[in-house]
């Protein structure tokens, strides 16, 4: 699976262009990177933002490219020139920067550092730091001028490939409804903003508590509502319009991660305990929350565009911390890669190739036995449609998959449509014109 290049012009527009491989001689080696300047990403009324897409997990011998994109805008709304520096270990192991002008389609080829790292090993990783400069300002992937912990590409000697089965469109499993809330205002309803030249907005996230209760982030009603046996058992007031993600820890406390008020790229995490007390436990995470997970008593939030998981103490990892180790995931439109990092080594690396075009990953979890469970959206051309694929791949590489309906009448966070409950069952938040449903699937039954 190769990640699709993005931030580039379409291929048909590239025909007059020449793909230019800039040799070492053309590069500007700018030395060891460090924190620079006291500037932020909003220079003088203008904007400087940096994006990169790490391949996350590669196979030894593959070309390793990191596409990079810079948004540099003047206060007047015109594009401005910028440079990008990627810093990675040189042959002597020193972190050395290589600089290029920001341009559409820019990518850095990390094949050489990755090849050196994997030589004689079963797995390895290569750290790298990306930095943009433009308009006299500097921005890292944290969208701040402070150097973040390096990103990492993991490389493995062996990564078997498995083809995903093609589940026909609409050949879906219904599941068991555990909660239904009609749209509307009130304790027994779910808030909805019908879209009209804007998205239709419903609850943005949910999770399943240790006692099996359903915890719903009811965005439009500004509350975190807990339901047991289909009835409201608790409602905690939050601000309206919170497009956040919720996770419930083993002790029953709920964590809600969302963009900080008025921010472009800063996240806030709130903890809501059993008494309903709300406390901000992280107020300035360096990125937009786009995924949340708990493991034991801890919580971690995926931050974009840093593309790292951050604990509340600020420590970041490339993969999501789980009881099995750091869970690595990379998804492209033609496949998924998964692996687990323990003690700096990657185990259980596997590539799932898809003949269907895939959308975004909605869920990835270790199965506790060396395999993985993941949910991803798949699209179909004829007849046209989309549905979620629930995929289990075992340590023996046996793949089982079934499909569930998208049921996405209302917009919700991509990584909040599914949760693996403490009972080992898969839960889906569905929306349709009549209301919101939480549906669960017994994975053993439906996969048999």
């Amino acid at each position, binding site marked *: 699976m190769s990640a699709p290049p993005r*931030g580039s012009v379409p291929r048909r527009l590239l025909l007059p262009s020449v793909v230019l491989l800039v040799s070492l001689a053309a590069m500007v080696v700018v030395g060891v990177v460090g924190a620079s300047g006291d500037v932020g990403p909003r220079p003088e009324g203008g904007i400087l933002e940096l994006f990169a897409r790490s391949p996350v997990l590669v196979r030894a011998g593959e070309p390793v490219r990191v596409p990079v994109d810079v*948004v540099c805008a003047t206060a007047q709304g015109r594009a401005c020139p910028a440079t990008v520096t990627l810093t990675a270990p040189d042959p002597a192991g020193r972190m050395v920067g290589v600089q290029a002008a920001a341009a*559409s389609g820019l990518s850095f080829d990390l094949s050489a550092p990755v090849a050196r790292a994997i030589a004689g090993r079963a797995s390895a990783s290569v750290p790298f730091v990306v930095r943009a400069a433009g308009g006299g300002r500097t921005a890292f992937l944290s969208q701040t001028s402070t150097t973040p912990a390096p990103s990492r590409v993991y490389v493995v000697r062996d990564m078997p490939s498995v083809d995903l089965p093609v589940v026909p469109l609409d050949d879906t499993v219904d599941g068991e409804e555990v909660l239904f809330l009609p749209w509307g205002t009130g304790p027994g309803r779910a808030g909805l903003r019908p879209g*009209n*030249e804007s998205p239709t907005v419903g609850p943005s996230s949910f999770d399943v508590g240790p006692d099996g209760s359903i915890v719903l982030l009811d965005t439009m009603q500004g509350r975190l509502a807990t339901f047991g046996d289909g009835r409201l058992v608790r409602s905690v007031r939050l601000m309206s319009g919170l497009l956040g993600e919720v996770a419930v820890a083993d002790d029953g406390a709920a964590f809600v991660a969302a963009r900080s008020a*008025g921010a472009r790229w800063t996240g806030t995490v709130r903890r809501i305990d059993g008494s309903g007390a709300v406390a901000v436990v992280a107020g300035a995470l360096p990125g937009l929350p786009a995924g949340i997970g708990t493991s034991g008593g801890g919580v971690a939030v995926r931050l974009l565009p840093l593309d790292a998981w951050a604990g509340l103490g600020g420590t970041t990892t490339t993969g999501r911390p789980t009881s099995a180790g750091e869970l690595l995931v990379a998804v492209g*439109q033609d496949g998924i890669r998964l692996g687990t990092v323990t003690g700096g080594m990657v185990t259980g690396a596997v590539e799932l190739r898809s003949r269907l075009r895939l959308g*975004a*990953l909605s869920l990835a979890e270790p199965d506790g036995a060396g395999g993985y469970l993941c949910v991803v959206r798949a699209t179909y051309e004829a007849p046209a449609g989309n549905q979620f694929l629930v995929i289990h791949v075992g340590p023996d590489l046996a793949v089982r998959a079934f499909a569930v309906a*998208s049921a996405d009448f209302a917009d919700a966070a991509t990584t909040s449509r599914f949760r693996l409950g403490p009972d080992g069952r898969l839960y889906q938040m569905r929306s349709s014109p009549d209301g919101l449903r939480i549906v669960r699937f017994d994975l053993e039954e439906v996969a048999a």
Partner: protein
Amino acid sequence: MNRMWIGLFAAAALVAGTAAPAGGSWASANCSPNHRDLTIWTRGDARAYATVAVGEGYEWGGGCWNDNDRDDTPADSDSDSDGGEGPDCSGFTFKTWMLRPTQGAAGGRWYDRFENIHGPYSTSEYRRPGGASWPFHLAKHDKDALANMDAYAKNGHIGMIYTLSTSTNDDYIIEAYGKPADPPTGVYVRDYFGQSPTYMPVQREGWSPDCAPRCTAANVVTVVVP
């Protein structure tokens, strides 16, 4: 009692933060026409134009905003077109794509952000372009064929691709999302690509290369790290 109402009104006015004169709207007080025709329009300039709008308000049928990173009419209803700050999603795309104000017209036109114009296209028209002569068309459902500032449109919403997709295949979408989301107009992480064919990719015609008008070399660069 009267004092209470006066106090409430004053508080509401403060919250609204508008500069509107009595009886007028925010747009009538702050917006005016200012545009010029273009022969060159680039994805880079379109993105720079759009990103300045992040943090501003949302107004159904609207198309005027400033650059103070806040919604100046937060109490204004989303569902009318009474002169609040901000664009709606289709108006935001229209101004960002620098389209002409006549439906189906080719060519480009730059609009000042203070020009209150929505343009002639609703989301249903972006989703189903009127014909081969229109200034945008449906694109192949393939990320390799899409680029910054292409859009995903459905009946009811449209948002533009802001940058590279994420490592889990989501997209950063710059869009007029609407209140009470914070920001009403901003960059969100979404899987509109996966929601095909409800959402379909749409491309504006005739983008000039970002280097225009002084292009001298290739525009795709791979830099080898030693």
